[in-house]
């Protein structure tokens, strides 16, 4: 066998190996795609459909819960919904979370302050009002 022949063979072998590796990689990525799809299907549809399911059920719950609020407590209801609508503080915490201090972190910080005013203010005002509705002797 000439050295050239050997070199060719070796190159060939290497190429074959590379092709194999490519194939494996593509197979793996396919597997990954399938796995993702399977998870999506298992959870009764895509994340969007799941979110929609939760949304629709929550709207029903909200509808009934709110209609069941006694009219006398509609003012506290406004205070409480105000407080819980500050749950977007969750987004603010994620924004303010990282160690570095950039634009996003500052925005997050401001949002935290604003939301906290609301949360504390809303719940405390509601509590003050509700305290007044205590059964009088």
């Amino acid at each position, binding site marked *: 066998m000439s050295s050239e022949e050997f070199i060719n063979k070796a190159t060939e072998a290497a190429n074959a190996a590379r092709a194999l590796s490519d194939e494996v990689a593509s197979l793996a990525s396919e597997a990954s795609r399938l796995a993702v799809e399977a998870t999506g299907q298992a959870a009764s549809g895509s994340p969007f459909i799941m979110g929609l399911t939760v949304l629709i059920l*929550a709207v029903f719950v909200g509808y009934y819960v709110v209609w069941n609020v006694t009219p006398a407590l509609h003012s506290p209801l406004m205070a409480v919904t*105000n407080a819980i609508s500050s749950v977007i503080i969750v987004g*603010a915490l994620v924004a303010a979370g990282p160690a570095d201090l950039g634009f996003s*972190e500052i*925005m997050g910080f401001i*949002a935290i302050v604003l*939301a906290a005013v609301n949360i504390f203010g809303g*719940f405390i005002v509601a509590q003050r009002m509700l305290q007044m509705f205590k059964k009088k002797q």
Partner: protein
Amino acid sequence: MSSDLSALLYLAASVCFIMALRGLSHPTTSRQGNIFGMVGMALAIGTTLAAPGIVSFGTILLGLLIGGAIGTVIALRIQMTALPQLVAAFHSLVGLAAVCVALATFYKPEAYGIGIVGDIQVSSLIELAIGTAVGAITFTGSVVAFAKLQGLVSGRPLVFKFQHTLNAALGASVVVLLVLLCTTQDPIYLWVLVAVTLLLGFLLILPIGGADMPVVVSMLNSYSGWAACGIGFTLQNNLLIITGALVGSSGAILSYIMCKAMNRSFISVILGGFGAEGEAGPAGADGDDDRMVKSGSGDDAAFLMKNAGSVVIVPGYGMAVAQAQHTLREMVDLLKADGVKVRYAIHPVAGRMPGHMNVLLAEASVPYDEVFEMDEINRDFKSTDVVFVIGANDITNPAAKTDPKSPIYGMPILEVDGAQTVLFLKRGMSAGYAGVQNELFFRDNTMMLFGDAKQMCEKIVKALEHL
């Protein structure tokens, strides 16, 4: 924390929020409900803090402390009569916070797993932009509502030519900006969007009259709930979706209840311009009606009520303005001590926010089982000796039933005209929020008690003590 555990805790927080609203179905369970709400919020915050990537606890704690302190102080100091404007003010903060979060997301999308700067998933970008717009409108809209309710600007609707055209143009430009933003991902469009929607919030709410502000605040509340749902979809966070739906339904239902009780369509409220002339004017008999009214003194009122078998008190916005609820309670105590049966009748839109009167009466330690809703007590007026209307007007106006041309025609009212005697405590002859004259003032069985609600109540109390 594993993603499963945090999802579970978020779920628990959602359930807490549901229980918080559920508790409000009765005064006895309401305080417990409020505790549920606080626990839910603590869970939500705690769970988020435990997420990976959140490390600057110092900053966060500082933010919570500053905000918490401000909120606590305001909440503890505020007078119960200032509730409507307080809710509006708090509400504006939610809007501003939403804008901040949206901006932060736009500049650091990778923290939320929705792409990288300049290449954010389009669906997320749309949700984000809508969230920004709703937040900005809520912010300035609530600021206007606050200013009107607080009396910083006139409660009168500010109508000017072409306002609907201008608003429509701004609305259209919002859509254009949204499209540009999604196609180019250029931050400049987001900033312009923020500016335009802030302006839009001002312009949309300015033309709406002061007493319609509660509807507006509820509506903005509802919108911000739905916007939170949208963010929940972006972040695939069920807590935000559920809470958003709760807040959204609550705002929508309260707006509906108020519109229904005023017999006005939601659209007409939003288009504004209602009550342009009629906002409660200055004290003094400035009605432009020449007919005679029978007017009486505190002594007369005391005498009439003391000798009555049953009295029904109808409080309205004027009682809140005068902060007369405590003196009123004293008066009622004296009457009850004399064996008079006294009850309170509350119209769904008495005052300036839903449940406004109930809170004020509760503040004055009136037991809630002496306080009746319109439907519960309306048929009892016929068998009532004296109705004592304190600072209310529109909600007793029989024109709502008899005069198809009246702006309040069709609005359900407290049918006080069926009672034997009606006492009307107000400062003068001026109309109520709806700007319509009240026929009742001129009836034979009506006696007007001119004066500030609190001062007149004090006079009656004195008279009762000496009778």
